[in-house]
């Protein structure tokens, strides 16, 4: 055990290509997702995220490239790979005419859990996902957030080792979104590898240990949220003052800042590092400016997104 233990890849993708006619949706992408981690595929609408998920989950066949899921080549042993995975896609995969219990029981039957174990598992999931009060009603009468929870619960009946979530919170209200995030964290705590796609930067930032930014079918950036944020300059330091005179004085001292006359504040570009802050404060001290308050806004993924894709975040057309 002298050499560092190699982390096994739950998902390994090499040179993945998918075309529809002349339209190249995925242009030779490589992905590695270590076991037990949360991975986010981030990108605007039409970047190819869903296509990638559909190929890796055996719904679509690629035109080129290799995909290993849990070490299994999905082209050669699709059923073996399917035993390891679970997908909750964008299109609701519940049977709306049936009740929550019936939907979950169908999954238990298809996973051959047997009557007793099946019932126990269904009961557990109903409790874990807080679906108890509606469980006996047809799903078509349920709210969107509850359906999404049922959708995920159905995926988890078979206890997949690798969970795919294709835009799990698109269209959800903020409260339901938070509930989904908590559920994802619980699943991860059980050791499940999560492959997530999202167009919400905040979501990737909060959940994922590693992010790949996809745009136009190509990988344009990859790394931890922190690494990605370091890729682009951004961030600022906001200084607030007690009087107009102080603000004027500060603006003279720190050229290039942006004035906010109403709030008597000045926003100065900078990454908020300790050194930079110290020199900033030293200069203000030297000019005898009194700073009432200081806050640092670090570079966020928004900045990364903007500078790498040329667009503000993909969720512009606000989710329905």
């Amino acid at each position, binding site marked *: 055990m002298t050499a560092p233990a190699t982390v096994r890849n739950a998902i390994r993708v090499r040179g993945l290509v998918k075309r529809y006619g002349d339209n190249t949706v995925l242009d030779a992408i490589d992905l590695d997702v270590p076991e037990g981690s949360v991975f986010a595929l981030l990108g605007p609408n039409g970047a190819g995220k869903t296509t990638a998920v559909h190929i890796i989950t055996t719904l679509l066949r690629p035109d080129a490239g290799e995909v290993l899921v849990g070490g299994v080549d999905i082209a050669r042993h699709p059923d*073996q790979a*399917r035993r390891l995975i679970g997908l909750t896609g*964008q299109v609701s*995969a519940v049977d709306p005419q049936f009740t929550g219990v019936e939907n979950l029981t169908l999954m238990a039957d298809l996973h051959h859990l047997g009557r007793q174990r099946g019932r126990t598992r269904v009961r557990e999931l109903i409790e874990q996902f807080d679906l108890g009060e509606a469980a006996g009603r047809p799903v078509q009468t349920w709210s969107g957030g509850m359906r999404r929870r049922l959708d995920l619960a159905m995926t988890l009946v078979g206890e997949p080792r690798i969970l795919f979530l294709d835009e799990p919170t698109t269209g959800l209200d903020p409260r339901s979104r938070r509930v989904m995030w908590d559920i994802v964290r619980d699943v991860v705590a059980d050791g499940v590898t999560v492959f997530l796609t999202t167009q919400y930067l905040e979501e990737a930032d909060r959940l994922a240990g590693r992010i790949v930014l996809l745009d136009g079918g190509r990988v344009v950036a990859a790394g931890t949220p922190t690494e990605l944020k370091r890729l682009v300059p951004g961030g600022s330091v906001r200084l607030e003052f007690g009087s107009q005179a102080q603000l004027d004085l500060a603006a003279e001292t720190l050229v290039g800042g942006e004035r906010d006359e109403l709030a008597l504040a000045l926003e100065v570009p900078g990454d908020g590092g300790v050194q930079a802050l110290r020199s900033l404060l030293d200069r203000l001290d030297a000019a005898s400016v009194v700073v009432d308050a200081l806050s640092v806004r670090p570079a966020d993924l928004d900045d990364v997104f903007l500078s790498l894709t040329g667009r503000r975040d993909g969720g512009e057309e606000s989710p329905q």
Partner: protein
Amino acid sequence: MNANAIPDAVTMFRRSLRRMRRYPSLTLFIAGIPVVLMLLFVYVFGSTLGAGLGGAGSAGVSGDRAAYIAYVVPGILLIAVAGAGQGTAISIAMDMTAGIIARFRTMAIARSSVLAGHLLGAVLQTLLATAIVVAVALLIGFRPTTGPLAWLAALGLLALAATAVSALSAGLGLAANSVETASNTPMFLTLLPFLGSGFVPASSMPGPLGWFAEHQPFTPITETLRGLLVGTPIGDSALIAVLWCVGIALLGFAWALRLYERLPERPGA
């Protein structure tokens, strides 16, 4: 690898059953059209058509209309079978657009199981619809003259015909790119009993139409069914009918399975 094909097909069949139990309107609708046609043909055209049957009607039944009831019921039953195909195509097309099918396809389920469950459900639904038709036929004076064994054989033939129609309709439903198309393409099936010996003898039709009516699959099925219910001669119709049904069922299922496997190539969703 397909060790679970049968248990999974049973699970899928139970899903169809549950849907049928919860939403019985589709079954009633499938039975409704043939019942209306039967009333129309028996009470509006029955007397005239019955008189025109000559020797083709069943022997020993008095009255032209009564003779026509005996003649037309097998054709009406096949209208029910053919009409059910439309329901099958629609429900498969709708199911394929539903996200649950994508879920099934990411699971280690034998692909034939999903289709087999649909088909078994469709056959059962067809038989339920034909049972309703038979009940109404009995009410308006249809009297099968043969014995229970022949009736059982008639049920078997109906089930076989329903399997063939369902398999073909499953293919049509999968080939359709919308639910609307799926509801239209199987309609020609409903016409076929008319263009055979379902309502008038095929021999009464002119030239090429007569030839088509003699040789299309519904005619031997109709003739066999009629023989099994009211005792008209069957001859080699039974064998030809079974061969047609088995052939169409196998080809239809193979075609549907291929289309189902090819589903992944559809972009979107």
